[in-house]
């Protein structure tokens, strides 16, 4: 495979369950060596897409290729070069962590000694050496997820599918998992990551695809999407309504979009890209212009708002967030 062949390609995938369209014209291209995030709410079709691309699920129409192999016609070749870690740890709960990794190594056709050596390496790498002899069923959620990821990495995969890998994990386990994924990517593995968390996609993904109702509704880098979503907003309340015009001119220099003025409450609002830098710049500039500021706040768009912007409707199952997060100003 040459480097310019995309690692994952999906064209017009359709998958129906009865009358439900799980995928409805799903397209995707992931360049080799990159991390692609699939961002979307529950039921958007992320898991269906991942299961199809990892050969677990048949589909009704469309085409899919992974590492240059056709998913339908060459599933065995695909299975030889992929790794899969899902939201439920796919390990044998009766066997010990070490037995699990040896088993999966043997099923990758490693000789016994090589499988044992690889198991011990991975246990050490994922901090599971002390728990190597314990049943995987007795592991904590984070340990089990780490074991599951280790099992996907027995043969360093060309393409790694991560289906909501950190759902339900504590921050420490989540960071450990992210570190492991970054190391893999540095090694040349392509990653397709599905997640419900904007932050996770933000942390790991080079490109993010927003999925809703079985299709990709928006695509871009994290910065591009945030700009489209309306990015973070800065909100400034000035002491004197007469200075609103001057303040708006200052804010506009650092804003990523139009400045909105609310004379009634003497407030200015504008989208910003680098939130902390923009806050500093704006406060400094306002101070230089001798404009008295009564209050200032940054607020970040929630995933809910992101969906509102990108799909024009609230995602199913996500409660509406009317209260702005981290607002310093009464809106």
């Amino acid at each position, binding site marked *: *495979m040459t480097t310019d062949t995309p690692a994952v390609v999906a064209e017009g995938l359709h998958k129906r369950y009865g009358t439900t369209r799980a995928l409805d014209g799903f397209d995707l291209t992931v360049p080799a060596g990159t991390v692609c995030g699939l961002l979307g709410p529950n039921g958007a079709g992320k898991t269906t897409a991942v299961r199809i691309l990892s050969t*677990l699920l048949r589909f009704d129409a469309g085409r899919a290729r992974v590492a240059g192999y056709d998913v339908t016609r060459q599933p065995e*070749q695909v299975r030889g*070069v992929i790794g899969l870690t899902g939201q439920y740890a*796919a390990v044998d709960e009766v066997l010990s962590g070490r037995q699990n990794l040896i088993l999966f190594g043997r099923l990758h056709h490693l000789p016994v000694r090589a499988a044992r050596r*690889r198991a011990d390496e991975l246990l050490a790498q994922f901090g599971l050496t002390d728990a190597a002899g314990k049943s995987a069923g007795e592991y904590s959620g984070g340990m089990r997820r780490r074991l599951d990821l280790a099992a996907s990495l027995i*043969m360093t995969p060309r393409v790694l599918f991560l289906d909501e890998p950190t759902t339900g994990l504590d921050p420490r386990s989540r960071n450990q998992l992210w570190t492991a994924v970054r190391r893999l990517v540095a090694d040349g593995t392509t990653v397709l990551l599905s997640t419900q968390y904007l932050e996770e996609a933000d942390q790991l993904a080079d490109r993010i695809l927003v999925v809703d109702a079985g299709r990709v509704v928006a695509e871009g880098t994290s910065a591009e999407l945030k700009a489209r979503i309306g990015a973070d907003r800065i909100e400034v309340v000035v002491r004197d309504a007469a200075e609103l015009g001057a303040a708006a001119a200052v804010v506009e220099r650092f804003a990523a979009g139009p400045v909105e003025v609310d004379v009634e409450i003497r407030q200015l609002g504008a989208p910003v890209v680098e939130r902390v830098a923009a806050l500093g710049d704006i406060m400094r500039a306002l101070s230089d212009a001798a404009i008295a500021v009564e209050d200032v706040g940054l607020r970040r768009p929630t995933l809910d708002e992101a969906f509102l912007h990108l799909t024009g409707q609230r995602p199913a199952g996500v409660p509406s967030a009317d209260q702005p997060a981290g607002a310093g100003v009464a809106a």
Partner: protein
Amino acid sequence: MTSTLRSPSRMSGADSAVRPDSASGGALARFRRALADGWVMTGRNMSHVIRSPEEIVIYFSLPIMFVLVFGYVFGSGMAVSGSGYREYLLPGVFVMTMLYGLGATASGIAMDVSRGVVDRFRSMPMARSALVVGRTGADLLRALLEMATLVVCGLLVGWQWRNGLGSALGAVGLILLLRIALTWVGIFLGLVVPNPDTVGVIVFPLAFPLSALSNVFVSPDLMPQWLGTIAAWNPLSATVAAARELFGNPGTGGDSWPAEHSLVLAIAWPVLLIAVFAPLAVRRYQRLSR
């Protein structure tokens, strides 16, 4: 990472003539790989048994209890009394133990399929048959251990084989053939049930009448005629009758057609069961990717 393992395909190109290891070679190489994968899965299933010792106790206490309870409790009320009845009974208990093993097969498969681990197996370059081959392999090993336990137990309570070792091994072979056939029934059941807990609920009501309505405990000749006919045609009865004949144990008689052709039926029934349930199970297994 101290070292990185790449599958051979990583080096070769998708468009080059060299195909990945997992798909290379002819039918023979594939078959060998399927056997190897099946053997690895057999080992995995055996590790399960070793890691839960309480299960081992249950496995081996059940057949022993069958011998003692049925041999002595029922034996005291039977026309052929004492060791005579126990000699009649033992081949039946061998077969009945094989029948109850079906529950373990079904729950083992149901457990695998209900857990996330089956997704990992299915996303790996292993033979798809390995899950089922490994189950069959492990259950057959277990059946061998159960047979050994039962034979020792039987010898202790007065059972013996009277037609030489060759015939005795032939009888054991027929009993294991039935066990293999029942494995496929169990695999199918395990794939059909909604969750592993339902297996017991389904298997017991199925296995109990099947073993009672046979020649395991009582000769079908002594039953009301319609019951006797059912019992005589019961697949278990064929294997039991054939085993009695080969072991040289009493009770081979009976003038019904199935009783006179028990050897043929002891091969035909299991083959028929495999022919029906193996394709059903395979179809059901493939439906996992729907």
